[in-house]
């Protein structure tokens, strides 16, 4: 049942947000590209001691949620991101604007400028982006 619906889930993966632990796994996969479960476990160490089985379970959950696709590689599986980090950032931001910032993106930017200690480089980059967007 899960396999059949995989395509549908990939089409709209953002329906199911990630838990903190799942996001940790995704960050590893986004960083190192296609990898095995063992590689993920190694990447997480030493600050995060997770059992192989836990990671394996979580990666399979990610696969069901449509964030990851697997391919057979020798005796094991290789997992790769099915959703790019940019796409995830985009959809997360969109959800956040809707739910937290009353559907008003300007409010988000204002809060960002209020609270974050932005360096002058950051500000310059933001200005440049706005200019580009305004054209």
């Amino acid at each position, binding site marked *: 049942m*899960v396999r059949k619906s995989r395509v549908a889930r990939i089409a709209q993966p953002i329906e*199911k*947000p990630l*838990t903190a*632990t*799942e996001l940790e796994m995704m960050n590893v996969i986004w960083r190192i590209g296609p990898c095995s479960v063992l590689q993920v476990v190694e990447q997480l160490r030493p600050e995060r001691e*997770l*059992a192989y*089985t*836990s990671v394996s*379970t*979580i990666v*399979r*959950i990610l696969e*069901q*949620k449509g964030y990851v696709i697997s391919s057979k590689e020798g005796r094991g599986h290789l997992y790769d991101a099915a959703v790019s980090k940019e796409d995830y950032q985009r959809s997360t931001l969109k959800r956040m604007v809707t739910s937290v910032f009353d559907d008003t993106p300007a409010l988000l930017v204002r809060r960002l400028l209020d609270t974050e200690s932005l360096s002058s480089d950051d500000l310059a980059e933001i200005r440049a982006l706005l200019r580009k967007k305004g054209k």
Partner: protein
Amino acid sequence: MMTVHAVNMYLVANLLLLLAAVGVACLRGVGGRSITAIAYRRQLQIAYVLTIAAVMLPSLSLLSQREDWLPKNAQIWSGASMGDATHSSRDTHRIGFSVASSEVSAPLYAVRAVTTGLFVAGAAAFLIVIFAEAMRIRRIIVDAQTIATRRRVRVLSSQAVRVPFSLWIPGVHFIVLPADLIVSPADIRMAIRHEAQHHRQLDTRVIYAYQLLRLLFFWNPAVHWLNRSIAELQEFSCDEALIGTRKVSPQAYCRCLLQVAESAVSQRVTSICVSMLGSAAGSVLRRRVEALLTRGVASNRRWPAAALGAVVLATMAGTAMAFSSTIQDRRISPEQAQRMLAVARRGSDFPFVANEPVVAQLNRLLGTPDGRAFVRASLRRMQEHEALITAAIAHYGLPEELMAVPAIESGYRNLPPSDDARRGAGLWMFIEPTARRFGLVIDGNIDERLNVALETDAAMRMIGGLYEHFDDWGLALLAYNTGERMVDEAMRATGSRNPWRAVEQGFENDPDYLARVMAMALIMKNPALIE
């Protein structure tokens, strides 16, 4: 009649469920103490037995009672009941009171309608609540990811829950775990073992039966309490079984419970699934931990638990018998019949009788809505002919109790002749040969049986003659129905002048006729009973 039984069964079941709840409370009180500890598994079994008994006993006791007290259905077997159905059902000699049942008094209907309305509304509201919960759980399961599948068990991970729970639907055993639990394999194993044990104990199926009970008895707090008790016992029993396998150390198990409890900040309790924390608050968790750590191996002996269960069962059975007819139709007891008899005999030397057949007929006439309607209608129609008949009775010097005869014969309806020649016509239901014998003219143009005055006069002569012949009102009335010859024969065969013996021996045309006339005569002397 069926509704009265259903209502009685329902009321008794409510009472029994209350007793079952009390029984379970005692059981837990006794079985929970360390000296008299009873294994939770046993406690749970007995709780199930008591619940089943509470639901089944009412129907059993009512079934047995039904045979004793009630004829299969209230039917009157003579021309008396021909009523409006005369022509439609002329083929059968047995005609029920069916048309009359709509005449039951209005206030009773109103009360019934209001009660039914309240019940249906309450049950519907409860059903909606359960349905909403089911939808919520369905959502959780659809959104969850599968971690493992073993035969018919599916282990799911869900972000929407904080507490593991299990759910059975036909064909699939679900175990749903909180997504956060996955990072700790030890806890996951424990949680799966726990939930699998619930499936193994059939808790996840039993829960549906208890939800049904809660729906049917939604207003009865005892049922909800019983439901909660059962859920708690299931948890205790599950804990007990897991610790008993020795694969799980009590300490680790408790840690897992606490872990789950900590993360379950405010998960709502659901009704059709069994959750690891059970259905109740912290106190239960504390008791579970206490039971796990301090309770020795509880006695698995059967007898203390069984004895306690038996005592409660016996009480329940007794209650079921005692209260099985909380709501009655107005049944006439033999004592009541004796009182009616005493009233009737005052100022009358007619030989009234209130023996068993008469009491049975009193119950048919007064104890059923149909019967009461029939009696009322007969007495109402009687007023129309009363003057004429009383005059005729006085003229021939006969007892006024004979007024009961047309009531039974025709319900005081001047019935036209039917195709069946044996059935008679008129108020007194003379058949053709008898009518001719007493000088009534019947030909193509005229049927003098339908002339009330003429037929009444003929009836007076006939009954007077029969009384002269038999010198006993019982025999004379029996002969009016069966014919003089058969009664003579009966007296010869039984060697007795007792009309009831004759009826018993089968010398009758209608085994209930005499009893019914006697019952009607008694009712006419006790008119208050039909008010």
